[in-house]
């Protein structure tokens, strides 16, 4: 078991004919992900790695039965690509693209939610259910199957921590990189809820960052839950943003600081560690105590 994706996920690659899209499609296929086709307007009728290319997601979905998509289109077209997938009936949509304007994502993220689709990202590394399906751009070799559910706002810090997990014999059920943009489709809490409902997930790693209140939200939800769980907050020594006027401080109402996040996790009994080494050591200890 796992969350969001598994070996049966049928994947369309939006932007499959681009440089990054092509590179990572090959890597996903090599991993064993079921890539059933791709979309690039104007390239319909051609093939990439023997997979059919379609002009629109709707056509691709109708002809392949895809239920999942991953987006590599340039930033200016990314929000449109997300909406195209959601309207075509794709249920899980991963948007890798970085640099998507905020005002493009605000209405699109809300509309995707309304349509009942699940968006991961944008500006994220994607997700992976080790041994079954890789839907993203992460280096596959560091992952291994196992009981740890993993959520992170940071791509590269995820790799760092996962590498550490795997080296220590702790495999992962699913690893989700939810993305670092201000407006994203799936939050920390969304993932934590899904993991708690997944029988294969027996422990949790949460990698947060300063800014926003989603770590706090997830922490509150975890109060009283007895799953072994550890967290890390990046940016504890980052200088406060120079350029956000008063509004940033007022809108957050004091939420979003590293200390606030640490406090929220501590209150929920979730230790916050300084380095990935310490993080994994602590998790190992807690899993042993909980006998999972």
């Amino acid at each position: 078991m796992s969350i969001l994706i598994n070996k049966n996920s049928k994947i369309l690659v939006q932007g499959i004919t681009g440089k990054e899209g092509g590179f990572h499609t090959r890597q996903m296929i090599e991993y064993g992900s079921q890539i059933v086709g791709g979309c690039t307007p104007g390239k319909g009728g051609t093939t990439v790695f023997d997979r059919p290319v379609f002009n629109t997601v709707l056509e691709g979905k109708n002809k392949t039965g895809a239920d999942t998509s991953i987006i590599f289109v340039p930033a200016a077209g990314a929000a449109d690509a997300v909406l195209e997938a959601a309207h075509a009936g794709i249920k899980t949509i991963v948007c890798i693209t970085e640099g998507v304007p905020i005002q493009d994502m605000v209405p699109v993220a809300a509309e995707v939610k309304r349509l009942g689709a699940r968006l991961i990202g944008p500006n994220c590394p994607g997700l992976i259910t080790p041994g079954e399906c890789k839907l993203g751009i992460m280096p596959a070799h560091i992952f291994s199957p196992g009981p740890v559910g993993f959520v992170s706002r940071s791509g590269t810090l995820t790799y760092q921590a996962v590498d550490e997990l795997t080296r220590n014999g702790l495999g992962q059920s699913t690893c989700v990189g939810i993305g670092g943009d201000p407006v994203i489709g799936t939050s920390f809490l969304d993932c934590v809820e899904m993991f708690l409902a997944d029988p294969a997930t027996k422990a949790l790693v949460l990698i947060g960052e300063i800014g926003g209140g989603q770590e706090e939200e997830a922490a509150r939800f975890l109060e009283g839950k007895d799953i072994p769980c550890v967290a890390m907050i990046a940016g504890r020594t980052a200088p406060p943003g120079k350029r956000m006027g008063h509004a940033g401080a007022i809108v957050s109402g004091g939420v979003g600081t590293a200390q606030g996040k640490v406090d929220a996790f501590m209150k929920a009994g979730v230790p916050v560690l300084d380095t990935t080494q310490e993080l994994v050591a602590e998790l190992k200890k807690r899993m042993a105590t909980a006998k999972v």
Partner: protein
Amino acid sequence: MIIHEYQGKELMNEVGIPTTKGRVAATPAEAKAIAAEIGKKVAVKAQVHIGGRGKAGGIKLAETPEQAEEAAKAIIGMDIKGLKVNKVLVEECIEIDKEFYLGITLDRDAGTHVIMFSPMGGVDIEEVAVTHPDQIFKCHTHPWLGVQDYEIREMLYKTGLDTKILKQVHMFAKKAFELYRKWDCVLTEINPLAVLKDGRVVAADAKINFDDNATYRHPQLEAMREVAEEDPLERSAKERGLNNYVRLDGEVGIIGNGAGLVMGTLDIVAREGGKPANFLDVGGGANAALVANALGLVLSDPNVKGVLFNIFGGITRGDEVANGIVQGVKQVELKVPLVIRLSGTNEKEGRAILAENGYEVAATMEEAAKKIVALTR
């Protein structure tokens, strides 16, 4: 991207938001002429991208055009928290009756833009948010439809202020949101939104920040960018295509890929007792040329006593990074130690290239941090 108060006021006037009357001056003579044109007491205000200019002596009042000239002479060229003042805004001196606050930004937790209003505006607004949170009124705008009149009304009528004033504030909120949307802002702030003794309501200050991801849609913004007063290293970063560089005041140069990893690197360097000289995220998929640029940039900071490369490749490929380092070192004279940590996509190829060129690669991030801190102490 940020702009100056005078530029913000120009954009506000364009959408019909009244501001204090005035114009920008680059020389004392211009300041004098503008003051003469205004024909009454004026304020001469430093145009500089940093808060607290008032306390630093960057705002002076002048009764006569001659005094305005003197004031401009004193302010232009002044150094405020490390930034040089190049221009002053000369504007009518206003008699304020009440100061409100109006700000628009993204509420990331709500997933939409929020308009905020407070009847207790002015310099201490952040304190008001802490001591009188009930005096900060918020309007979360409709994610699809944009702000609706009723949403603004629902916010404003909670204040209990006089209806006549609220109708004016409503107009400011609506037009400020129009400006915010039109220009892809991440911040539009009027503080104070001033009710004057003569009954007028004006934007007495204007702070506007833009979404850097959307500036491609607004080519007019390029003309508004005033590079002269930016930090020279941050300017140099932009010229090199490095958009995620922030200069700090330590001595350990840090280059990594991914904001989280770079933040994590800063954290661990700090924990080991080092002081980071900068934050530099080369982003996903950086190629050799960009990596070389990054190295060149960090080495051009005279405070830097050593550089830590921390790369964990996803889109970014180890061989590209390794080639970039080799290339970068060839372009400058390397006088400080370099510690490299490289994992992830094409890690083997990258390590091979570095080994060929005589560089050692640290096994872990912790080890790399310890090493660079030891070498720069």
